[in-house]
């Protein structure tokens, strides 16, 4: 299939949609693997929110592109290099600390992005952002509460959280290398970055987590469809059925 996007708006929304989808898939991996039942349910909830968010965004994108493809085709038929999600959300569930750190770093960013999108000229995007911000409020609070508990809990929980932070932080830099497309749809990208930094720094400092210095990285940008090696296996699993049985309807 030809997955060329004519509109800059759909290219922009695709980045958020793909980020939501891949994070949802990662969280779904946690189903039946949570530290206790209530937490299992909470992670499934967040995953469901993110799948729903991705689906709504794909629908908007498909309409902008005159329905030349369908949301499920965007999910199941594109190859690795045709996905435009943050590398942050591809990172694996090494342990519960990774899950929580990844979620927190994502949610703080997503909160700022969707707050900006309340000013969008596209009324569908505005409506969706209003709904999404309510979901993010819970997910963000949930992640932040856990950062607090893990950071201040035991020596082990602190060190596991610190280790997750140290590994994951290198995927942050690219988030703020905003390009012209981002800047068209996000009116104040500098503020997104400064607010993100302010909150992360404050929360880490309050809960005994160190934000290590990350040297400038030679890492190609997610906006051009570059990924970590974790992406391919994730897609192979996710896309297996529609690719193995291309004539089937599900």
């Amino acid at each position, binding site marked *: 299939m030809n997955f060329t996007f004519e509109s800059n708006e759909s290219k922009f929304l695709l980045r958020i949609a793909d980020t939501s989808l891949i994070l949802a898939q990662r969280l*779904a*991996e946690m189903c039946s693997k*949570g*530290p206790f039942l209530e937490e299992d349910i909470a992670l*499934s909830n967040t995953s469901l929110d993110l799948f729903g968010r991705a689906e709504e965004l794909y629908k908007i994108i498909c309409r902008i592109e005159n329905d030349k493809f369908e*949301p499920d085709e965007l999910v199941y038929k594109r190859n690795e290099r045709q996905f435009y999600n943050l590398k942050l959300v591809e990172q694996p569930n090494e342990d519960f600390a990774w899950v929580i750190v990844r979620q927190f770093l994502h949610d703080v960013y997503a909160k700022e992005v969707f707050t900006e999108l309340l000013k969008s000229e596209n009324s569908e995007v505005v409506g969706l952002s209003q709904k999404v911000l309510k979901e993010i409020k819970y997910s963000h609070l949930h992640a932040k509460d856990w950062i607090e*508990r893990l950071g201040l809990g035991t020596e082990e929980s602190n060190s596991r959280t610190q280790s997750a932070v140290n590994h994951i932080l290198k995927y942050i830099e690219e988030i703020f290398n905003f390009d012209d497309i981002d800047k068209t749809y996000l009116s104040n990208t500098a503020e997104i970055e400064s607010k993100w930094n302010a909150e992360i720094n404050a929360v880490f400092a309050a809960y005994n987590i160190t934000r290590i210095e990350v040297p400038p990285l030679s890492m190609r940008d997610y906006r051009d469809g570059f990924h970590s090696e974790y992406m391919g296996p994730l897609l192979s699993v996710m896309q297996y*059925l529609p690719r193995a049985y291309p004539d089937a309807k599900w």
Partner: protein
Amino acid sequence: MEKFEAAFNAIIEQDLKVEPRDWMPEKYRKQLIRQVSQHAHSEIIGMQPEGNWLLRAPSLRAKQVLLAKIQDEAGHGLYLYSVAETLGITRAEMIEQLHKQEAKYSSIFNYPTLTWADMGAVGWLVDGAAIVNQVSLQRTSYGPYARSMVRICMEESFHQRQGYEIMVQMSFGTPEQKEMAQDALNRFWEPALMMFGPHDAESAHSSQSMEWKIKRESNDHLRQRFIDRTVPQAEYLGLTIPDTKIKLNKETGHYDHGEFNWDEFWNVINGNGPCNQERLDHHKKAHYDNEWVREAASAYAAKTESSVA
């Protein structure tokens, strides 16, 4: 004591509900803990065979429906653990019993899910059988258990429809899909029927449970109801029930059926099914790998409580 026992017997006789603070015979309590904890564990272990296809669900809709369904099951487990807790056992104790294999869960979850059609068969047959059993349990004599069943049944009926919807898609889909649907029916039919337990004559806990109205209808009676309801659904799908003796008996109005492989039933119950070890290992791994998380939460709570005081 006699006075208490008389009061308890009167509750049972008048079809009223026994509540957590009421006096109850020790055996009634134990029997309920056994049954409710087994029911709770079944919900939780039952998340695994469906979880096997969650990441491979073939559409955004299918994925969200399946995830919501598995999440419901976690929720059912939560209600049921809470019900059991009203009888004086903790969730931690129940989980320990599960890990030590002192508590059982429904044997059906020891079968592997091999194709996407199994997500259909599990919803249609396994949840379908569970509903027949649970609708009957809405009238169970222990109040918290009965009330939890009302809520659980509402959600289960969605699950069954979700499963049947997949069966419809597959049965009326491509030849390969139909083949998967028939294969799933072949593999799950008999294990689903055995979910109702052994024949009445061989059921160890049945008679006392019936007297106490913990259980309201017999295993064979419930099983027959399920068969009668399910055979026409299979016919609609154009699928063949893997039992050559299935036939509507015009005199009784019920479907006659062949005998089941009870050796397999007992063997799987006794731990020798295809996935018994894997199911338990998965649960243990999630539990023990995450012990540090629970410790962190407790340590945090202890620290913050003491700072408040």
